[in-house]
């Protein structure tokens, strides 16, 4: 088990490594899906894409029932291949922010101020048809409790194939083929078998992989992972995080990772937002936030991790003492 600071260093190293990568892969993103091969299903984004694919500017969200503001201004920008993490306890407004980005705020909630731009388009101007075209193909998401986000009475493979058929215009048979490839790409051991199964026949970790496969089926640029690893046990959680990192690297996905667990965010993200009661209390690069937390709440989060993490018990066996790790 590594400490948070080590994780952030890993993330930084990963970023540095990725920075040079796009030049070696000349293919442009999302063009002619049919030409993609099985070995390398996804293509990387060129470095030139410096413009943000997702820009959230001072977003406020209010509840229409109580007439109360829940989120008081969130801003961040996301460029291809980058990852933004949002940390906070439940009720801090992180999920609402994500939902606003996806245009799926629950009933009675609305964006009361600020703007959200996806690939240069202000979402306030989108018609329902444009939203439909945008979702899946440009922005997509995976959630906690993956079983409930898949239709229980349709085979999971068919649900992935459906996305491919609709969003990419592939024929039934090709779509099936591609869906199996995707299932393989998310490292499911027996993709053919999984294709024909129902949600209740699969474990939580497998379902999250299926959900990720469905989310990236139409080659989106942005993937939002809202507590995507929360309900999974620790080893599976680590595997899913690795998978997300790999997808980001291969496909140039821009990730938004939402979690209540600082460790999850630290492992993946370039930039971190710490939210509390609808307020962004801390924002900065991952190493900055972890090493030099300015806000008391962030310090508390980090301290709790050090206090209750496994490191404390492993400490006597390692050269590091608890004092050194903090």
């Amino acid at each position: 088990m590594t400490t948070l600071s080590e994780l952030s260093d890993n993330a930084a190293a990963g970023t540095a490594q990725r920075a040079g990568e796009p030049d070696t892969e000349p293919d442009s993103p999302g063009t002619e899906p049919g030409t993609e091969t099985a070995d390398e299903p996804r293509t990387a984004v060129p470095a030139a894409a410096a413009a943000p694919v997702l820009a959230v500017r001072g977003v406020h969200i209010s509840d229409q029932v109580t007439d109360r503001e829940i989120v008081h201004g969130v801003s961040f920008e996301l460029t291809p291949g980058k990852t933004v993490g949002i940390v906070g306890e439940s009720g801090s407004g992180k999920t609402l922010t994500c939902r606003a980005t996806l245009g799926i705020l629950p009933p009675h909630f609305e964006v009361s101020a600020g703007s959200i731009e996806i690939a240069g388009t202000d979402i306030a101007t989108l018609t329902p048809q444009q939203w439909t075209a945008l979702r899946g193909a440009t922005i997509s998401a995976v959630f906690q409790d993956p079983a409930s986000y898949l239709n229980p009475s349709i085979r999971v493979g068919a649900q992935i194939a459906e996305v491919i058929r609709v969003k990419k215009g592939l024929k039934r048979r090709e779509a099936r083929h591609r869906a199996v490839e995707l299932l393989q790409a998310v490292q499911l051991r027996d993709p053919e078998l999984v294709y024909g199964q129902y949600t209740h026949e699969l474990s939580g970790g497998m379902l999250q992989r299926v959900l990720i496969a469905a989310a990236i089926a139409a080659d989106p640029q942005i993937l939002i992972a809202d507590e995507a690893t929360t309900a999974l046990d620790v080893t599976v959680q680590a595997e899913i995080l690795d998978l997300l990192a790999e997808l980001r690297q291969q496909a140039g996905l821009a990730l938004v990772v939402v979690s209540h667990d600082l460790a999850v965010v630290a492992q993946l993200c370039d930039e971190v937002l710490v939210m509390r009661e609808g307020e962004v209390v801390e924002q900065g690069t991952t190493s900055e936030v972890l090493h030099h937390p300015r806000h008391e709440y962030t310090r508390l989060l980090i301290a709790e991790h050090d206090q209750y993490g496994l490191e404390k018990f492993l400490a006597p066996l390692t050269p590091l003492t608890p004092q050194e790790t903090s």
Partner: protein
Amino acid sequence: MTTTAEQAPPARRRGVVGTRVRHTLGRLLVTLARSVAIFVPVFLVATFVTFALRSMSGLSPARIQLGEEATPEAIARVEAQWGLDRPFLVQYWDWFTGVLHGQLGTSWTNGADISTLIGLGLGVSLSVATFALIIGVVLGFTLGTLAALKRTTWIDRAITGFVTLISVMPAFVVGIVLVAVFAVGLHLFPSAGYIPAEQGFGPWLAHITLPALALSFDVVADVARQLRGSLVAAFRENYVTGAVVRGLSPRRIFLGHVLRNGIGPALATLGLKFPALVGASVVTEWIFGLQGFGRFANDSAQAGDVPAVQGVLVVSIVLVVLFNLIVNLVLARVTPASQRGV
């Protein structure tokens, strides 16, 4: 199917497909077995209760044939002729095996074969009931779907209001209103009677339209309400959000995901509604002067003709059981997950 297999060897692929076919067949058989397991006790209990009616009522063919002033000896003689002096369970067993062979016994009042008598009325009743079901399903599904799609708008409220209105109208009230308006008032339809389909489709349809409409109101109301409810509930499910996020159009989400999961309860309602439909035929056939199965039940019951009443009840139970079997099979086909308790 097998031509696209590149990673998986064809043999293995075929294995997966074969398993799936066997899976489907197996599921069908399991559904069938489970339905039969439920309906066999139902049938046994129902026939037993039905048969026990005679002992409980204390009615006897002797009273009907001999009148009130018969001597006890004469009554005993007639009852022995009908085999009513034997132990109750022996009588039940005899009658039950007869029922399994399609023999419902003979009428106390005129000695006619009850199976034949019921067969005569069944055509009328089934024509009306089937037509009522068709009206109920088509109208109920249309209204329920429309209300769910336009939920919380005035269309939804109008449909809900209409459905509420027709749900509080008992079949006999609807029947009377229909007769008053369409038969007596506007002379559009005949007010009573029946013409078999062989003597002309038009007249047949004209004669069963009003009774079928009267019967269908209840079905329309229940199906529409149930469908609206379950569709609205399905719309709130996470998998709908999931499909939205994957960029599927509202139309596709509705047809492919919501309807598929929401249709089950409405179909189940149809299965539950069918007994009421058969039951209400007593009233509609009385209003519209149809010599059907419900009328036969009513007349036999009022005349104290116990075997005839038992026969009608058994046939009605068989009809209900058969209909529910079909509904269960359709349900298993539409929502495979429901069969496994998910």
